[in-house]
């Protein structure tokens, strides 16, 4: 899509305060930040170079210098500050701050600052039509984990595995944190088994930071099995929640056949059981039989 003149005018004006605060930024970096081609950035800059305040003497024009693909602003005229946040940008900031507040519950200094900042942002135009419902669950070890990632130090975890339903001791090298379906997850190298694992942060019961280790590239060594399931329409939640491990999907009326790559069959077994009878195992047969056996064992207790 070709930008309209007005869209281009705003982008060109947005370039000025950005370059002013980031002097010596390259055309290539600007192209990446502003999501347009390098040629477009150059022509935008040439354009603003021609613009300025009435009078249009050299003193009243915006003055931009580019040399060897590197840009600086010498005189921004009135464009010395960025444009105000749009309403959607405020939504992104406000919801982001809410999540930061939720995960920093135990860090009282950060919490005070974040709350003040949220109020400040709310004054810029709070949007009462776009909200976050509920809270992110408390993340007591956020700071420690975050520190361990930056300093490449190991963590000793006491982790409550839902699959095994027991607390296990893990020694891990944390890699990154991410939110998925509203929960915070830690992806880390489990050192004892030398394999990447994902931990749900609110199930970490205890967490101690350990020594620094040299970063190393690990070969993914987990064995993955392809599992095929038929999922009924009313259990679509399963598909939505697990889209990251689903490799293929065919819809067929009320049934959706999904192919998944999983390294943990026990997890699949428990999931199928808990969604009974909305998900059926097509293959492997071993899994199908295991699910039925669990259901029989459970039924016998009622």
């Amino acid at each position: 899509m070709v930008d309209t003149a007005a869209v281009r005018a705003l982008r060109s004006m947005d370039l000025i305060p950005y370059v002013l605060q980031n002097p010596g930024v390259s055309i290539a970096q600007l192209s990446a930040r502003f999501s347009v081609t390098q040629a477009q950035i150059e022509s935008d800059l040439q354009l603003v170079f021609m613009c300025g305040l009435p009078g249009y003497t050299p003193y009243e024009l915006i003055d931009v210098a580019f040399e060897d693909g590197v840009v600086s602003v010498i005189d921004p005229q009135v464009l010395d500050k960025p444009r105000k946040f749009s309403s959607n940008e405020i939504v992104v900031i406000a919801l982001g701050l809410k999540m930061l507040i939720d995960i920093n519950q135990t860090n009282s200094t950060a919490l005070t600052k974040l709350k003040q900042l949220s109020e400040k942002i709310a004054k810029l135009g709070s949007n009462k039509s776009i909200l976050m419902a509920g809270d992110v669950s408390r993340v007591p070890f956020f700071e420690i984990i975050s520190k361990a990632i930056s300093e490449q130090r190991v963590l000793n975890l006491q982790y409550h595995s839902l699959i095994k339903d027991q607390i296990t001791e893990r020694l891990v090298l944390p890699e990154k944190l991410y939110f998925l379906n509203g929960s915070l997850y830690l992806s880390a190298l489990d050192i004892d088994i030398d394999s990447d694992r994902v931990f749900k942060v609110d199930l970490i019961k205890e967490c101690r930071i350990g020594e620094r280790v040299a970063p190393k590239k690990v070969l993914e060594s987990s064995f993955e099995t392809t599992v095929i399931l038929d999922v009924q329409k009313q259990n679509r939640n399963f598909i939505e929640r697990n889209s990251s491990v689903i490799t293929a999907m065919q819809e067929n009326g009320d049934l959706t056949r999904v192919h998944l790559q999983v390294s943990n069959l026990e997890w699949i077994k428990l999931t199928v059981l808990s969604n009974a009878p909305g998900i059926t195992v097509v293959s492997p047969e071993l899994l199908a039989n295991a699910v039925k056996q669990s259901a029989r064992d459970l039924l016998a207790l009622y």
Partner: protein
Amino acid sequence: MSAQKTERLINLTLALLATKKYLTKSEIFNTVAGYTGSPETMERMFERDKDELRELGIEIEVGGLDPLFEDDQGYLIRSETFQLDSNQFENEELLYLTMAVNLWHDSALQANSKAALLKIQSLSGPIESNSVNLPVIRDAENSKTLTTAFESVEKRFALNFQYKGSERNVQPYGLYIQDGFWYLVANEADAIKSFKLQRIDGRLKKVGKESSFTKPAEFDLATFLTISRSAKKEIAVLRVRKNQGHALRSKYAVTEIDDEWDQMSLEYGFDQEIIQTILWYGSNVLVERPEKLRSDIKLRLKELING
């Protein structure tokens, strides 16, 4: 041609931003570079330019000495409506703002996150952010659907889409994110409902014009959410095998029944949810009451075995 127009729009914005007093049209035509041609041509150019800038959210204020005489009217853009103030945020706040927007940079809202980040960096310069490791949000939302939903809520466009096998025509009132999923709150035939965006089949289509409906003044999204979330609660009494069900035990108190079992009671809202939780524990958690849950679970298991 288009470059000329872009240039003129920039010059107009700069002039209106720099002026302390309202600029009349004739002042604009005489001083702002780019306005040429007959008075009528310039007039048309100016009206279009003004509309296009307003369309993109720029507030051009109209005022003047005598509001009754249109000729005396002038225009200006107030810096505080156009720009952020450089002293608005302390350095530490800029760091938190960066963290807040960075959360979204892999999500369906990445375009907004990126745009906000550019503005933050236009206040702060590059931020030393390697001292903190930030989580990012991963989602499977369709960013086109989400963007359309945002726009429709803001500008009050009616919407049309396919949902659970039927065609829906709704007036969007709001949006919320819960457990990582986005929901649209909208009025469909005088009933206010929530629609999960991921369940919309195909495209979310805007219908008709902007401001095509009025949202009732008494509607408040936060109140709507509180009411719909505090739906009826029931109590389930469970039997939990000793040394098992640790996740449940960490949330709810138990009393001992015998050497093998403990008892636990918990509140629940939706049958489907509690049944999933209970079944997850297999033979280690059983329902004692209510009978309806017991029979529902037994029925589900039988179907699973015979299925």
